[in-house]
């Protein structure tokens, strides 16, 4: 074994050891770890769940962050007097196609993976996510950076994303996909299109995106072919022509008229409306966009849910929420606010060692090999190890979801949808 391999092995082993040791709190919660949204404790609790597949029992806060709003000021109403059901009998499955026509797709837990593109994340992490999606019988999304060959074996669990840059969108990548996702906008940078800075555009990434090496890529905004719901309908028809079996998801951000956007997507034929709130994750975005444009998803979910109800179409479209969903409790709260399920990105990254430090925009920025295109750093994520961590995390989340539902006497996650009356607010 050469020195380079030894060095990678040494640091991989140390990182793995640290991810096990830190949640034990033997060394306390590291002072510099975390922030208001992802607190140090929440990060450690995620490491713990990714290690054990169990709900943390050592006092670590695993339910909420400390942002002072949104999910962090919502709790659960007392369930005293409610007849509890058996946790094992609770059904967490949701349907991704509620229309009367088209392919029936159900996922056994109300979660699938969000778009993280090749280039913004390492190939190994991408494979780990795809493997985990296969194991969990759910999905992960390619993001807008194309469809690497190494992902093809997992294609039955991979959503092909069609974003404004159209990177890697080819007939076969549409035909592979059980679900095709149009990304109209992203919560972390609403109205701005994707950013991949020059550092990360290596030869492989440039080849996949048919661009030049080490040149920053800013995706257009909006889709230059879509300026109305009718144009959007043409997009949906295009996908259905290329792959009639695919379900169509429409990922949008959360403007004031997000409810109108949702209904427009429904009438255009979408199966899934995916709303990505203003506090969503990203590989790179202007700081000004992250906190100032579009509303947080906590406020958008009820708006969309209630509007679709009032229009009488709520049971014909699946509403998925993302953008700041960090925990199982966040998932349950989002569903109680009106979503059918949630799309997860950052929590999967935290499961494999992310510290939410926010240096992902650089080529060698990610210290643990998640959001990097550096060949050496990428090796820190072994796809099999990453798969295990992600599967464990979602197993722990499933347990927590079952616990919440069982305490309220609900036998299915579908019964939680829109049950705001089970929530309690602190602000």
């Amino acid at each position, binding site marked *: 074994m050469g020195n380079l391999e030894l060095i990678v092995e040494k640091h991989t082993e140390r990182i793995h050891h640290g991810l096990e040791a830190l949640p034990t709190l033997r060394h306390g919660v590291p002072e510099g770890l975390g922030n208001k949204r992802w607190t140090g404790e929440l990060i450690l609790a995620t490491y713990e769940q990714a290690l054990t597949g169990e709900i943390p029992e050592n006092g670590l806060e695993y339910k909420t962050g400390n942002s002072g709003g949104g999910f962090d000021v919502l709790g659960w109403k007392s369930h005293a007097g409610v007849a509890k059901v058996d946790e094992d009998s609770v059904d967490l499955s949701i349907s991704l196609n509620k229309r009367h026509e088209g392919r029936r797709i159900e996922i056994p837990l109300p979660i699938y993976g969000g778009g993280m593109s090749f280039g913004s994340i390492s190939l190994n992490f991408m494979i780990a996510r795809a493997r985990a999606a296969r194991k969990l019988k759910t999905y992960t999304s390619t993001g807008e950076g194309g469809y690497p060959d190494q992902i093809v074996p997992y294609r039955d669990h991979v959503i092909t994303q069609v974003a404004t840059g159209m990177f890697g969108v080819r007939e076969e990548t549409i035909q592979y996909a059980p679900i095709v996702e149009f990304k109209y906008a992203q919560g972390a940078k609403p*109205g701005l299109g994707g950013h991949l800075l020059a550092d990360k555009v290596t030869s492989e990434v440039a080849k996949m995106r048919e661009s030049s090496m080490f040149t920053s890529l800013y995706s257009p905004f909006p889709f230059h072919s879509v300026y109305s719901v009718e144009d959007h309908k043409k997009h949906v028809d295009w996908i259905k022509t290329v792959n009639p079996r695919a379900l169509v998801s429409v990922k949008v951000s959360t403007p004031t008229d997000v409810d109108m956007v949702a209904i427009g997507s429904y009438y255009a034929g979408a199966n899934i409306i995916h709303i990505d709130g203003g506090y*969503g994750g990203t590989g790179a975005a202007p700081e000004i966009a992250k906190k100032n444009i579009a509303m947080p998803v906590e406020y958008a979910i009820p708006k969309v849910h209630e509007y679709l109800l009032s229009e009488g179409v709520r049971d014909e479209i699946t509403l998925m929420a993302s953008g700041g969903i960090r925990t199982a409790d966040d998932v349950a709260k989002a569903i109680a606010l009106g979503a059918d399920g949630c799309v997860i990105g950052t929590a999967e990254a935290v499961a494999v060692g992310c510290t939410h430090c926010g240096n992902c925009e650089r080529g060698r920025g990610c210290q643990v090999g998640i959001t990097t295109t550096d060949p050496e750093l990428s090796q820190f994520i072994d796809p099999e190890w990453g798969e295990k961590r992600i599967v464990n995390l979602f197993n722990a989340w499933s347990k927590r979801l079952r616990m919440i539902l069982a305490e309220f006497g609900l036998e299915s996650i579908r019964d939680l949808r829109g049950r705001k009356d089970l929530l309690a607010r602190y602000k």
Partner: protein
Amino acid sequence: MQRSELPEQMEGGKEYHRFRIEPKPAPHVYPIPNKFDVSARKLRLAAMLVHEAFEYRLNKEVVLSRPCIYGVFGGHFGGFKPLKQKCVGCMRCVQEYPHIMTVKQSDRYKRLGDSFWTPENVYTVWNEASTGKILVKGMGYKGAFAGEGFDGMWTDMSEIVRPTRDGVYGREYISTTVDIGRKPTSIDVAKIDDQPKSLAIPVPIIFDELPIGTDKPDVRTAVKLAAEKIGTFNITRDTRPSKSRVSSLLPIIDEDDIAANEKNQPRIVEFDALRPDFLEELLSCLDQSIFIGRLPLRENSASIASELARQGVHGLHFYADYHGRDYSKDPRHVSAALKHVHQRLVQDGLRDQITIIASGGITLAEHVPKAIICGADLVAIDTTVLVALQAEFNGEARDRANHHLRPRRINPEWGAQRLVNLIGVWHDQLIEILSAMGMRDVRRLRGDIGRSMMDEELREQSFKGIAWAT
């Protein structure tokens, strides 16, 4: 209307040039504190090295390979003397060696600013002034869910509306030009030469007068040069007549200054608007100038604004304190006070006739579009200028007369470039916001509260039906 004298247009004759402020690096002259403090328990570090030396059979390259990709341990003494200035807080050293390493925000960093200016905000302005580039970072937003004033407000976006964007500058043109002065509500052909006066500037940002005691010659020169380069104005108490009418100076004048300025009348002047008798005198003596009444934001600002607009003032400059609080008995955030003034003028049918400049608490790029949404036409910045020039906070900076800001000695050219960079990057960020909203002109943003979202309102709407926790 006078057109803006944009530098590109002046140099390029009548050729069309898209307005853009070119940044040039203007690195910090005075050292800035490290954001993070990295330290190692030295005995444990030594023990670990010995242990690894055995484990890897004295393979120096492997043993000494460091758990940092940013070079914090790249100095001669490795972890024994970390290069703290290189730390970005990624925490890998703590992940690998939690029993040895500690990373936390440095005490000096935490002491930056005052109770309003957070360390993060000071760092942001420093970065913007130094590079002139929009800060692009990974991961999502990390801060509080919402807050008071501008922090409890989100701007709207549009999924599919033009202007389109391709890359950073390859987008359809978005105008950030605003008019200063009084605008006609109708055209009277008989009085076509007697139109109200106004002029246009390419960005909705001007430099306000500086806090008392900080207006040193080097700082003053830097601000003046920056205003000239950008094509905007700087408000000053220096009322000596300017040699050129195209000066960037916007003097605050009183009676004693009128005579001296009559011959070479400034394009715009500010005056104390709490003395309405003075306006009449100004209107008759300085007939070529645009008059902006300067007054503090208070409970009665809306009615005063309405009265002054009727009397013929061309514009009003409302200022809050440096923490963005107005001067009411029960202080409100500048955003709330501005909305009140704007809405009153709209109700009275006067809003389109005058210009409103807002200042106080405008410290970040996002405050510009948000203040405009609340009803301002443009903003003036104050403490932000000094922060960009690396002034020191020695306590609270509450308002012009009550502050503990100490400017450093600077090279005026360097200072001007820092301010040009700052305004340039704020201009770029304003364009990002307008682009996301599908707007081509910042003038359309004024008072467009419907294209914003307020935390309090959304919370009540969306959390309706959720019981309070007991």
